[in-house]
């Protein structure tokens, strides 16, 4: 399955989370979504979002000024 990518760079709280939620809703369970963001607050926020919603945060890393998250839709 092709990996879905959401470019949320340049967006501030709470837009990366809102857009990720919207994108996840359209994916089947088990599919993964890669989110690119520049909001430093998104690091803590994606952890909290995934813990609360039951989705898996498979990866959370930083490439320069871009934060890169890989979320597996499990809920």
């Amino acid at each position, binding site marked *: 399955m092709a990996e879905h990518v959401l470019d949320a760079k*340049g*967006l*501030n709280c*709470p837009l990366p989370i*809102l857009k990720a*939620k919207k994108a996840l809703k359209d994916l089947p369970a088990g599919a993964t979504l890669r989110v690119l963001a520049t909001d430093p607050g998104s690091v803590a926020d994606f952890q909290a979002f995934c813990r*609360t*919603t039951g989705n898996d945060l498979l990866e959370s890393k930083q490439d320069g000024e871009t934060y890169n998250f890989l979320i597996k839709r499990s809920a």
Partner: protein
Amino acid sequence: MAAGESANAKTMTIIVTKGTLDWAYPPFILATTAAAMGVDVTMFFTFYGLPLLLKKLDLQVTPLGNPAMKMPMMGMHMAMPNLVGVLPGVTGAATTMMKNLIAKKGVASIEDLREAAIESEVKMIACQMTMDLFEYKLEDMIEGPTLGGAATYMENALKSDINLYI
């Protein structure tokens, strides 16, 4: 999990009492984020929060009486003396400055957040008493909100996990 999908969903209510450009943010940010996290949200718009339901928003912000409002400017933070804040045009200038900052920093507009709240099925209640008091008409409001009063709010609040007053 979208709000309302689970019978076990957590619930939150927010009483929205303020309608300035700055104070419109906390309720809409929390409502949309909570809904994205599977929470059933009810917003109760009363007093100066009620105009946030008008079709056409004209939100403004004033530095008057708010010494904490310091705008970033040339690497510094600038506060506005109250004596300057009272002058005609200063509210408009402060509003323009804030809107420019909002756009530049990738912060959502209130219009966008309100749209997102409606899309994620956040329930909105317009305070009937405030409608009467300030003579607002339902046809001037966006589609979606229901009319209600304190008892309607209380029924929601009593069974809710989180109740906020903003």
